[in-house]
């Protein structure tokens, strides 16, 4: 099967502050990240702050320009595509944001928000429009009577549903969910997660599901990719990554997750996440890794294929 989205060696750095008189300090947020998403698949991206997970989400949609690397979507190379073609292609790839309050224009009615998407791509014009809007609202579990209201009349969970409806309006093949349920209270979060799961079962859409919450990612994703300081640490099927992690960072992340079951053999990390401005040499995780060896400082560990669709970037196989 050819992947719907294929990303190779994506790198990105941002200028932050200054260095000396004229120099600019660069912060590298992505270091040669490769990933692929199959049609109908949900890929979970997990990481803490500074891991670059949101940058990936925006770079694959070309909402920000990567420094190097290629992004192929549906067989087309996004980095060389013309602006007009890119705009047409946007119909097939959408995004849902974290903050339900910032993601809707306070001045537009829900009808205007949803119509913007349809107008841009000349979909359901004329009399078909009203039916499509009703259909979208029903799909995300909102009453079509709300169409002429403005965002401030809705709760956070309802706004997130509107954000989902906006993304679904153009019938995309692929949606980036950038921390889409993180800002929601747990009872509302469950509602939205169920909605996403239903939509996926119904439409066969692919998702890139970005979150810092491992159990949410495990529940919703087929495969999970774990990132740390802009590097891929481990990739594999969701349940396997969660219940049998092979990379020390994944293991630490999972055991740090607060849970109702108290586990005795926890891996506790010490120290702070290093600044992306001054990452450790070799393996970026070594400064906090309980299993680090002197050799870890010398070379960047390659992402090795461990079989069963699992990959990990760690030189040690004698642990975990």
């Amino acid at each position: 099967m050819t992947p719907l989205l294929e990303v190779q060696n994506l790198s990105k750095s941002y200028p932050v502050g200054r260095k000396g008189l004229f120099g600019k300090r660069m912060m590298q947020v992505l270091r040669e990240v490769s990933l692929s998403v199959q049609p109908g698949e949900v890929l979970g991206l997990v990481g803490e702050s500074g891991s670059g997970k949101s940058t990936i989400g925006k770079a694959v949609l070309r909402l920000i320009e990567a420094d190097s690397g290629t992004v192929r979507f549906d067989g087309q190379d996004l980095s060389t595509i013309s602006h007009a073609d890119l705009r047409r292609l946007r119909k097939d790839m959408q995004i849902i944001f974290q903050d339900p309050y910032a993601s809707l224009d306070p001045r537009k009615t829900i009808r205007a928000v949803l119509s913007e998407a349809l107008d841009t791509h000349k979909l359901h014009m004329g009399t078909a429009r009203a039916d499509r809007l009703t259909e979208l609202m029903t799909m995300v579990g909102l009453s079509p009577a709300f169409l002429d209201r403005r965002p401030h009349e809705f709760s956070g969970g309802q706004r997130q549903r509107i954000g989902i409806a906006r993304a679904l309006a153009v019938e995309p093949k692929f949606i980036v969910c950038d921390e889409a349920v993180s800002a929601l209270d747990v009872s509302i979060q469950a509602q939205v997660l169920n909605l996403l799961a239903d939509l996926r079962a119904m439409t066969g859409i692919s998702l890139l599901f970005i979150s810092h919450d491992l159990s949410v990612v495990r529940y919703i994703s087929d495969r999970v990719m774990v990132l740390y300081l802009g590097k891929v640490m481990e990739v594999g099927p969701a349940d396997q990554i969660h219940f049998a992690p092979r990379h020390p960072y994944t293991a630490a992340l999972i055991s740090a997750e607060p849970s109702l079951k108290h586990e005795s053999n926890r891996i506790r990390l010490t120290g702070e996440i290093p600044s992306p401005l001054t990452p450790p040499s070799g393996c970026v995780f070594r400064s906090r890794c309980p299993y680090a060896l002197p050799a870890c400082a010398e070379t960047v560990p390659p992402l090795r294929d461990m079989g069963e669709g699992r990959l990990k970037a760690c030189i040690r196989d004698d642990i975990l």
Partner: protein
Amino acid sequence: MLAFLLRRVAAAIVMLLVVGTIIFSLLVIVPGDPAELLLSTGGGSATQEAIQNLRIEMGLDKPILAQYFSFLINTAQFEFGTSIVDGSSIADAIALRLPRTLEIIGVGAVLALIVAIPVGTLAGLRGGGRFDVIASGVNALLTSIPGFVVGTLFIYFFAQVLRVLPAGGYVAFSQDPAQHLQMLVLPATTVALHLATIIFRMTRASVLEMRGHDWVRTATAKGLRRSLVVRRHILRNALGPVITVVGLQLGILLGSTVLIEFVYNWPGLSGMLVTAVEQRDYPTVRAIILTVAAIFIGINLVIDILYSLLDPRIRLK
């Protein structure tokens, strides 16, 4: 810190250069012959000979680039040339009059700060309360009175009706200190009034903003005395924006004092400027504006450095 300082100084120098270039190029982009234009006051045209003399005097006969560089070099050495009206040295005249202008601005600024910062702080702390409503109301009214109107009304009440202060004029401090101070009162108060309304507004807004920050709650939760919370965690933080505004306003004041000096007949830069504008004495006008812009840039440089001392985060940006 040193890199920050050097960057700021370099930026200020570049700014001075740009300002100089703009002022120079204004004369170049003016339609027609500048010499002819400047001499054509009141509709009548000057003789060819006079125009030719002025061209040579102002160096307008040389190529533009040569004019530009000699202008920059002269300006850097405070060599502003001579007035095209009476041939006197412009630099000397500025050196004589600038201190007088700075005097009323300085005294006015001190008065304004003394009054506006405490009142603004109190109004900000009691945002929405009776004191704030009254203070802000009075301030809104005072803000709406242009400086020259304040001056005119002051003269009417204090000099004409009450007859307690002189209507204007100037005596050097060395000649008669008492007289000098008497004559200083009204112009300085007029400057202060204008500046105080702006400082009040800024202080109030800044205090109002700062008092809502999380660290103020932290300070209160630590059990700090209220006065300490206000001083260290509200006022100290609020001063940064206030200083910036004061700096900007001092620069703007260098311009608006023209009107106030005119009203009170105070022989600062303004009299010189107004006369020069009326007589279209371009070199003089240009020199005064360059001086003021340079002071303005200098003040902003000082403010930048002060702000960075107040708030360590600025140095990183």
